[in-house]
């Protein structure tokens, strides 16, 4: 019903190569998240899939059909944008129905689908309103509803939560997850927020500088990152990277996540001074300046009292320490 295959897609704007050969397969019903720092090409890749940008070379195949030269409206996709992109002059109902109307769907069918989508997203009270009369969260729900009524093969989300405030973001994230479970549709979701990626995805595609760094499930990426970039990008606070030579290791870089370090005031592997402590209630982040390891972050679950200037010893969990070679790849 909605598979996607991307074969060696490249995209250049003049001399600037934004996508440097992307290969990817998405099976029917999967929730795939593209994640990466800004400028990594994730939005461009989504636009190429949508047909809003032409790829410089390579093929986009939706449901076994090469759509590389098909206009966006004929690709069987629907897209939700960061800025909602609702038509300001149309009511909520007409906003949702416009795509179907353009495709020549009979009116009763349009009404039926709008009915289903609006009850799914609890938009019924607002059907006759214009976008200007809605709040940000409601607007984004309308934008999602506009995608749902089209019953597309592929849902594309372009950072849909970035314009919402923190509380709404969590709610809408939940709604998108439920929507995916109900519709069992294939969804592709672009974000720079790794929390969204980890919570929503079946499969995460980590992009960097126009290349795919790693593809895998959230826990796979967390537990066995392929390289230094993925290790640093997934997980918060960020993984500590320590120069291997300073620790007398053969590997170029040693990586250890803040949550895989323990501290003790008396003894441990790395002696250090507390530079700063962040008390979040559920956990405490300590910044330690260590003699051997340099500045590292330690995440302690629960409350831990440590004054800046105090001396602490940090000990990494040897089973959860990563070793990276000179090329940034994980050493087995």
């Amino acid at each position, binding site marked *: 019903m909605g598979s996607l295959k991307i074969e060696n897609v490249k995209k250049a704007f003049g001399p600037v190569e934004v996508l440097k050969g992307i290969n990817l397969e998405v099976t029917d019903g999967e929730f795939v998240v593209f994640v990466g720092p800004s400028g990594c090409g994730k939005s461009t890749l989504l636009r190429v899939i949508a047909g809003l940008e032409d790829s410089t070379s390579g093929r986009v195949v939706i449901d076994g059909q090469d759509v590389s030269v098909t206009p966006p*409206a004929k690709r069987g996709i629907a897209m939700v944008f960061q*800025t909602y992109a609702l*038509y*300001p002059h149309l009511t909520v109902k007409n906003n949702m129905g416009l795509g179907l109307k353009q495709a020549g769907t009979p009116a009763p069918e349009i009404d039926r689908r709008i009915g289903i989508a609006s009850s799914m997203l609890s938009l019924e009270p607002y059907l006759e309103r214009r976008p200007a009369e809605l709040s940000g969260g409601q607007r984004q729900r309308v934008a999602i509803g506009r995608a749902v009524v089209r019953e597309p093969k592929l849902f594309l989300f372009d950072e849909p939560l970035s314009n919402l405030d923190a509380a709404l973001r969590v709610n809408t994230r939940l709604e998108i997850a439920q929507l995916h479970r109900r519709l069992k549709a294939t969804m592709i979701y672009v974000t720079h927020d790794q929390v969204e990626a980890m919570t929503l995805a079946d499969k995460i595609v980590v992009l960097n500088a126009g290349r795919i760094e790693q593809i895998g499930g959230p826990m796979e990426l967390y537990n066995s990152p392929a390289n230094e970039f993925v290790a640093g990008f997934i997980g918060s606070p960020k993984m500590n990277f320590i120069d291997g030579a300073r620790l007398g290791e053969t590997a170029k870089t040693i990586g250890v996540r803040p949550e895989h370090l323990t501290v003790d005031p008396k003894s441990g592997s790395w002696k250090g001074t507390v530079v700063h402590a962040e008390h979040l209630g559920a956990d405490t982040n300590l910044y330690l300046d260590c003699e051997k390891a340099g500045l590292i972050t330690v995440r302690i679950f629960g409350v831990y009292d440590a004054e800046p200037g105090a001396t602490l010893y940090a000990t990494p969990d040897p089973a959860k320490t990563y070793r990276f070679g000179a090329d940034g790849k994980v050493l087995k």
Partner: protein
Amino acid sequence: MSTATRSLPRTIGAHAILLTYTAIALFPVILVIMNSFKSRAGIFGAPLTPPTPKTFDLIGYTTVIGQGDFIHYFQNSLVVTVASLFFVLLFGAMAAFALSEYRFRGNSLMGLYLALGIMIPIRLGTVAILQLMVASGLVNTLTALILVYTAQGLPLAIFILSEFMKQVSDDLKNAGRIDGLSEYTIFFRLVLPLVRPSMATVAVFTMIPIWNDLWFPLILAPSEETKTVTLGAQLFLGQFVTNWNAILAALSLAIMPVLILYVIFSRQLIRGITSGAVK
């Protein structure tokens, strides 16, 4: 009453400056309208006093309406202004959309070329334009004026509108594309309504010079059939005797239509000038 953001001397100062400017700007207009209701003796005797029962006279207006075909001149002016305005806005907006929306070779060069007209006054080309109109048999037609004014108005319109169109969200246009709207529908239904305030700004800036122009009507269309109001008013301007009553009345009348059009556009205009300053 002093507050953190306002102090009395500053308020008075600001108002004094604004009121002075308003008085200077309105003075000639009021003088024209005032004197148009006075007798000849009244105009020359005391030009700065408003009409008194003794000097009040409608002779100017009766002359204008009685003599010459003023209603017809008005019609000509209106046809030329409205038609030129329509074409300037239509073609200007379309060119601006193309420049701001599509990536094509020579895009910025084309934008520069189209904006060049702002810096070069079209009157420099009067002789060539006249030759062109003679060759194409358009002398003494309103079409000639409409063509020239459209050309004259386009550069500024394209320059202003393309800046505003760049601000229209890409996501909105892309949403339209995904919903299967054609590029024309996207332009007319999604983009144009959003840049309406800037269209009004362009409309006012384009309209006033066209309505007031004397140069091109005098050169390209001076016939009785195609005279515009400003040219028609010259009828009363003689070499030896000038009928001031009639001229002032004609000018007062000529202010009216442009004032009405301005009022229509001005509600949009304020938003056009200020939009973009704040989000």
